[in-house]
């Protein structure tokens, strides 16, 4: 039997705060992380709000700052030493389309070019962690960091490494992203009330809210973690991923890709649907995602208690899978399910047992979903240590 993979460190920066505990307490209170855009003058833009992290910076420097804060917190908690048996896997996109540089009068430096590469955060994490093992970068849009965690689990199970530092980072509150995604019709336009803009599974949802953040975890072979006396936060029990093979912009109405990802994660964990006590849904607050995911949840897991924390954090895109995986781990640790901010009138088209406010419950196994533009789906299951 393959040895278990355990979580020994977590770190995050989200629009709700810097660090795991401030963010988690804000989640349990149902706080709002969404407000007017401050990164640039958004006057006259079709969308003038975002879920910005409380960290200064812009572009590649902001992503690097978010990464550093989250990775150092996870490593401090874990106490993981670096070395050849430690790898890195990061979910990330390129910082912004490099063609914006066509407007620059000066030539970008080599360092600037390198900093915008999708694998720049991976190199940064490896340097911080002293990780000399395999390192890779996963770029599947909103599924990126969920798949990065899955890849990390698989590398540990195969015996290639003893530990992986894995997670994701993204920062999308910038002009071209706001214009681009608003022209796609994917963003909420609730400019008059940003704090109520992200409303997963609500009848009156009108799109997602672009966000910024980073989430990183230290995953480790259980025997190695125990041998060095590390505190085990949770067991990474299962991972499943699938393709929709449907359309670039839409999710299949029956949620078949989401269903497959969750089913495969259950198989991987050796669990049945009845074993799952809480789901942190992808729940983006778009019409299509929430309806499609609901169909998959209802079909596979029935009335399992479910919430989406994106009502508080907005959509952290490449980072959301890792950040929400941390929320499911904290839910296990504390025996409490986060609520669903802005869920005022549940959509009848979303037949899900929604948790409205943070609720105490004995949790054995929790599941988190991440689904991306283009149809890649990832599901992760965590259990108590």
């Amino acid at each position, binding site marked *: 039997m393959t040895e278990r993979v355990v979580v020994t460190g977590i770190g995050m920066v989200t629009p709700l705060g810097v660090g795991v505990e401030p963010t988690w307490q804000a989640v349990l209170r149902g706080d709002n992380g969404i407000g007017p855009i401050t990164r*640039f003058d958004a*006057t*006259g*833009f*079709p969308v003038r709000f975002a879920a910005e992290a409380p960290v200064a910076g812009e572009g590649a420097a902001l992503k690097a700052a978010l990464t550093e804060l989250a990775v150092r917190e996870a490593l401090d908690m874990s106490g993981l030493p670096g070395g050849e048996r430690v790898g890195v896997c990061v979910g*990330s*996109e*390129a910082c912004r*389309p*490099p*063609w914006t*540089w*066509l*407007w620059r*009068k000066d*030539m*970008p430096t*080599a360092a*600037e*070019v*390198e900093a*915008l*590469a*999708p*694998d720049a955060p*991976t190199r940064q994490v490896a340097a911080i962690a002293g990780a000399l093992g*395999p390192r*890779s*970068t*996963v*770029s*599947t*849009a909103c599924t990126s960091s969920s*798949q990065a965690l899955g*890849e990390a689990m*698989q590398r540990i199970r*195969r015996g290639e490494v003893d530990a992986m530092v894995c997670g994701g980072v993204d920062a999308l509150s910038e*002009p071209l*992203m706001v*214009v*681009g*995604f608003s*022209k*796609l019709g994917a963003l909420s336009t609730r400019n008059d009330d940003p704090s109520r803009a992200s409303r997963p599974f609500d009848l009156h949802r009108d799109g997602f809210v672009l966000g910024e953040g980073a989430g990183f975890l230290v995953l480790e072979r259980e025997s190695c973690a125990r041998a060095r006396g590390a505190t085990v936060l949770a067991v990474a029990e299962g991972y499943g*991923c*699938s*393709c*929709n*093979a*449907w359309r*670039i*912009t839409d999710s299949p109405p029956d949620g*078949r890709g989401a269903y*497959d990802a969750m089913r*495969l994660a259950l198989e991987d964990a050796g669990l049945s649907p009845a074993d799952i006590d809480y789901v942190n849904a992808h729940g983006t607050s778009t019409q299509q995602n929430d309806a499609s995911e609901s169909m998959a949840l209802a079909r596979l897991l029935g009335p399992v208690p479910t919430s989406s924390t994106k009502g508080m954090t907005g959509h952290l895109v490449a980072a959301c899978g890792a950040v929400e995986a941390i929320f499911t781990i904290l839910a296990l640790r504390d025996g409490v399910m986060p609520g669903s901010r802005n869920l005022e009138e549940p959509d009848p088209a979303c037949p899900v047992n929604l948790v409205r406010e943070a609720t105490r419950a004995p949790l054995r196994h929790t599941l988190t979903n991440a689904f*991306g*533009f*283009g*149809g*890649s789906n990832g599901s992760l299951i965590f259990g108590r240590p």
Partner: protein
Amino acid sequence: MILGLGFELPIGLSEPVALRHLPDPRAGVVAGPDLGPWLKRRKDARLLPRAAELALPAAGVAMRGFTGNPEELGIFVAVGREPPDEGDAEASLVAMGRGGELDLKALRGEGRALYPPLLPLRTLPNMILAHVAIQHGIRGENAVFAGGAEAGHHAWEAACAALAEGRCDAALVGAALSAVDLASARDRLRLGRAGAPGEGAIFVLLGAPMPLPPHAEGEWAARVGDVGPVGAFLGLIPPG
């Protein structure tokens, strides 16, 4: 076992005639490709970034002999940085500029109107995987690895692991990159990379785990240019 191999490179598309060009010191741009045979819906062509245009024929040829259930097929793809799609965005870029600077006021007005609505989707790195998966109905385990040549190796490793561990019966693995645009040329200059930039795609259909392909990037660079993660697969193409 390798069940299928397809490539779209400056030497041509996976046909014997293409192999005869191997000794030629060619580099640069792929002619075409003709997407007609590789698109279920013609209108999907407007959604394709250049690297996906190269990937579709290459993946299509690799899949020719596949008779299994594509819903059980895995797909693992390596990509470079986000494609710039300058041509698409040209009108918008012109409108965004004032006095040689990116001007937010212009972006709010005319620039926004001219901004191609599908551009965000065309520039996401996972669009290559998405288009190939949609065209062939592939619904199994998947991942997109980004970076340089090492991304190709990661895709290969992930495909082999998925096969060895029984998570899929067959896996389509490959890479695609187009780096012959102005921004890429400028980046290469700044990074001090020698040789010609290139573009291309290679896909391999695997039916069982295989060792990594022989390393042949340097040997190939003069023939097809620097094709980033695609280079990890060039050693698979039979010589002469």
